[in-house]
């Protein structure tokens, strides 16, 4: 006796969250059945392995049919074939677009192209995430990227509108799209200590302040591309380190203000010029695409690592950066106050986030 056909169709589509997770994680039916058996479900329900097999097959088939709709979530809402309560629809979408931290760290900032897709094999081996799941996550990134890349308006809003994701997940996707578009390097060894959350935080700040959308909401690609004019202007900041008098003045203002307030005051005083040179040079270089890509490498090399080697506490870093940014206003003869604020305001936020072990 062999089962030729075995189906169950409900007027309301049954969604088993556990099986959905197994499916999303890319397990085959037999692996999923084995995992469910291990979870002790047979003992709880008194079911047999055959029942579990049939149930799992059924859910997998349903998910497979739903997958086409999940690629364009608004379709899931308007389709008539599967009657699914709204809360369940939201769950299906949110889970489908959720991603693994380990996976996203591997592809963040990489070009979402076929070439990268070939690397998925390696990523799968490295992270222990099934290839199927890697593919889904990668395809999700790519799909979202393609849809919102050329769109006007807020990146997060666009993602939310076209993929019906939660606010948090939309922000994450905005970061992914932003990183992919600007190809920020995140894979270097010295960046390994950073989490996706760190990068997403920086991405959000940069989108808010450094993109075209930050100044003009009527242009294409406003949130995805950095404001070229702004990057061009940044080289004007060079005067802060190139002009020796200005650099000395800046240092003395900062040191006066912070004396007695920092536990690492002497180290700060000794390193001030190096640090300032580092931060300003990063700004001046951003005109080149290659240097934009290396932004995070540079920030870590030029600021985070020196401070860390001197064991600056985070509170001191904050005090220093605040004072460092603010005291520029008291420098007579420096005319690019607004530009400096736009640059340093974001950079300060990023650096504070990046500064950890």
């Amino acid at each position: 006796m062999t089962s030729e056909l075995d189906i169950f169709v409900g007027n309301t589509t049954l969604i088993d969250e556990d099986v959905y997770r197994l499916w999303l994680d890319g397990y085959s039916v037999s692996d999923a059945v084995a995992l469910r058996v291990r979870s002790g479900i047979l003992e709880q329900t008194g079911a047999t392995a055959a029942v579990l097999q049939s149930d799992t097959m059924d859910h997998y088939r349903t998910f497979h049919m739903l997958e086409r709709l999940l690629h364009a979530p608004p379709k899931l809402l308007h389709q008539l074939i599967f009657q699914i309560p709204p809360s369940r629809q939201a769950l299906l979408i949110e889970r489908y677009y959720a991603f693994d931290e380990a996976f996203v760290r591997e592809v963040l900032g990489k070009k979402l192209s076929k070439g990268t897709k070939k690397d998925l094999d390696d990523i799968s081996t490295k992270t222990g995430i099934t290839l199927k799941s890697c593919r889904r996550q990668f395809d999700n990134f790519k799909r979202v990227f393609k849809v919102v890349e050329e769109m006007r308006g807020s990146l997060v809003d666009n993602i939310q509108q076209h993929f019906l994701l939660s606010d948090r997940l939309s922000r994450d996707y905005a970061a992914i799209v932003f990183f992919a578009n600007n190809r920020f390097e995140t894979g270097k060894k010295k960046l390994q200590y950073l989490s996706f959350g760190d990068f997403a935080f920086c991405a959000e700040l940069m989108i808010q302040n450094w993109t075209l959308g930050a100044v003009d909401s009527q242009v294409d690609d406003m949130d995805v591309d950095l404001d070229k004019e702004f990057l061009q202007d940044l080289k004007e900041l060079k005067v802060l380190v190139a002009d020796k008098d200005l650099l000395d003045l800046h240092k003395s203002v900062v040191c006066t203000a912070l004396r007695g307030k920092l536990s690492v005051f002497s180290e700060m005083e000794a390193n001030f010029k190096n640090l300032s040179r580092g931060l300003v040079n990063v700004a001046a270089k951003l005109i080149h695409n290659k240097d934009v890509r290396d932004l995070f490498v540079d920030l870590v090399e030029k600021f985070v690592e020196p401070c860390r080697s001197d064991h600056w506490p985070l509170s001191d870093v904050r005090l220093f950066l605040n004072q460092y940014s603010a005291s520029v206003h008291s420098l007579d003869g420096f005319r690019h106050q607004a530009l400096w604020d736009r640059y340093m305001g974001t950079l300060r936020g990023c650096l504070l986030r990046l500064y950890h072990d």
Partner: protein
Amino acid sequence: MPGKLKVKIVAGRHLPVMDRASDLTDAFVEVKFGNTTFKTDVYLKSLNPQWNSEWFKFEVDDEDLQDEPLQITVLDHDTYSANDAIGKVYIDIDPLLYSEAATVISGWFPIYDTIHGIRGEINVIVKVDLFNDLNRFRQSSCGVKFFCTTSIPKCYRAVIIHGFVEELVVNEDPEYQWIDRIRTPRASNEARQRLISLMSGELQRKIGLKVLEMRGNAVVGYLQCFDLEGESGLVVRAIGTACTLDKLSSPAAFLPACNSPCKEMKEIPFNEDPNPNTHSSGPSTPLKNQTYSFSPSKSYSRQSSSSDTDLSLTPKTGMGSGSAGKEGGPFKALLRQQTQSALEQRGGSPHRFCKRREFPFFTLTAFPPGFLVHVGGVVSARSVKLLDRIHNPAFVGIMGNTRSYKLLDWNSFNADEPETRDAWWAEIRQEIKSHAKALGCHAVVGYSESTSICEEVCILSASGTAAVLNPRFLQDGTVEGCLEQRLEENLPVGCGFCHIPYDELNMPFPAHLTYCYNCRKQKVPDVLFTTIDLPTDATVIGKGCLIQARLCRLKKKAQAEANATAISNLLPFMEYEVHTQLMNKLKLKGMNALFGLRIQITVGENMLMGLASATGVYLAALPTPGGIQIAGKTPNDSSYEQHISHMQKKINDTIAKNKELYEINPPETSEEVIGSPIPEPRQRSRLLRSQSESSDEVIELDLSHGKKDAFVLEIDDTDAMEDVHSLLTDVPPPSGFYSCNTEIMPGINNWTSEIQMFTSVRVIRLSSLNLTNQALNKNFNDLCENLLKSLYFKLRSMIPCCLCHVNFTVSLPEDELIQVTVTAVAITFDKNQALQTTKTHIEKSLQRASTDNEELLQFPLELCSDSLPSHPFPPAKAVTVEKASPMGEGNFRNRSAPPCANSTVGVVKMTPLSFIPGAKITKYLGIINMFFIRETTSLREEGGVSGFLHAFIAEVFAMVRAHVAALGGNAVVSYIMKQCVFMENPNKNQAQCLINVSGDAVVFVRESDLEVASTQQAAATCQPLCTGGEVTT
């Protein structure tokens, strides 16, 4: 020229890409009705076209309106080659033809293609302007309402229940026409879909005409079926119960009962008989002795026609129960006479064209209180027929754009030909009627018909429950009869229907009678089998459960007559074994009655399958069932005896366990007090066995063995051993689950609104080698049990829950394939309220009585306003009027709740039940009857057979929901999947499936919404759950 159909095509969405180059589609729409076609403009390059067309107007006869579907075809415009069809939508406009149903059909319909499935959606608006036509000889029957529901629909009241209506229509199957060899599968499928749609329309119209002749205005329990007879044609047949219904739309119309489906959902306001006539001296006519041989009579009626020989065999099965006590006897006879006269009277009614009144059958399974007086037992008849080509001389043209094929009414055309499908059914019905008579009954309720076809052999089956009915509902309002007040005295609530309708001294079959355990006045049988739902006033102890008997029998492959003979010979044995199994399982459950019994016999190439499903309950009125006693044949073998006693212990344990599980704790009664001096105190079932089996196995019973009413199972061979084993292999559902095949589960009355309707299909392939009956039985049994287990597992999140209306269908699509299709609804109930005391029940029924009285107010008034001769209601009626509770009309007007529009947007519930828990049905929008074909030539790519069928069933659900939503409804009740024919050819990577579904589209309003609206008098007369007002939408 009585109708104008208006159609507007608004827009499309999610269309498929038809032009690969642009990834877009240039779509336009053809709207066709009858011979007229309109087209919209081409909407260039869009997957979401906005046609916003003008109103297309069709001026048509109402006859066409009833027969024809509106056909909407979406196409992709192609400048250089033929336009490609994207898909079609068929819209049945019948619901627009009743005044009370839907007024407009408007909404998104899935665009369906028989090869690709659903391809996007189209937004359509349809309206009908109907002109009144007073032509008496008209052919249409617009205005007759159809209901699939097998009880009086919720917002109606039955004024008269007229009786049986049936019709069948025959045509050639387009799939088997010569043209099919050259046309595409798509064209062939579409021709079939359209033809069936047309035939069902015609059938419905003809039934409607019969109803009008009977002066009815509705058909309840309408069941339409297709017989795909292959080469020999396509039969569409329907049965139903003609009624005169009154809409409870007046302000005072207040149905407290229909809101709490838990108990009195099928309540219709005739709870007590208002007729105060006293029975003076009823002519105590002695009952005629009705002789009836119970053994299956192998009556071959060998009929020969010019070309073919037909074999017909009808094993009769009459199972009965009930009792006429000494006083009850004459009274009952009187009642029966009245009923008969009522039925016959209609037969002789002065309608010229009406000559079908000979069958007092009712397709209803639930009745207004007081309607059902006694129940005799199940009656069934089967007949094996050979199909020959339906002689259809009408020109069957190419299915083109016009309606070039003519439909033939088999009845009229082949009037001189005796071998008609109609004659076959008439024969079977006659058989049923005589069975009912033998049980002392004049009517058959819960009546249904079915067929099973394999190649050229067809088994026709009919079954129902013999019953004695209260004539008051059956009369045309001319005679009130002399029903007396004593009726109520004689029919104590909750047990009256159990009392035997036949004469104790002339029982149609030997039965073990006792005095009713409820009223102690009249006789009841030890076991009662019926095809109807549990009457709402029946007193049940504990809960019920689904009981199934499953059986397979191998048969040799044979041709034509030899095959039919072989089947005919097997049938009585199958019937007998199915009954034995049912009886054994019922005893094992510690119960004494079966409701909703449905026995399906399916014929295949090399086997016969029998599947009986029913809901077992413990009726308080019937005696406690005895246990099952096992007796061995070789008493000297000690190890054997040990084995026997071991088995016995197991059985006893199971019975005890089941009693606990189903909470069966009947009050202990001393047997001696009510013990009856019945001439032959033998076990009915036992006798059934010895009778039904042929003479070689007449075993003398050792009655001294154990308790008198213990049921003895003799283990005389391995077969019997198998039987006992299989009894014990049925595992009860996991805790928190109950199941039944009736509308509601006895003993559970606190349903929540969480329901889940589902269809599950399984096909297994038998290993072809060395198939034995035992192996086959085991396979089949495992198939059903595993299927149930899977359902329990899948629905575990709904616990505590009950599977209601579990409907199994078996088919044998190929040699080694068994297909089982299950449709049911899972309903969650509230465990905490599960233990409602009897006190609340009493309160409820009191409340019900008071409101019922109130409703009776309307009854005479409405009857008087009827064109019929006035109903001479006795003046004492006024008493009832005065008793009516002072419920202000205004109250009801004030509490109209918002219609469904703002609640639950888009969600359409589907259920095989006639009600929706926790909600009140406020409007019936019309019948849904849809037929779909799906075919694929890329089976593997669509996920194999499972993927293909899964997608198709999901699509069918979607199309049903879309149609209901477009009618303005939010639910389908009495939903049924009547056919699911699946054929595959994996080698060719092909599969085809036909599905036929039906149901009633309704509007419901949540009780919680109603409660908000009703503030004032909920406390006064009704308990909170019972509140409900008529909602004007």
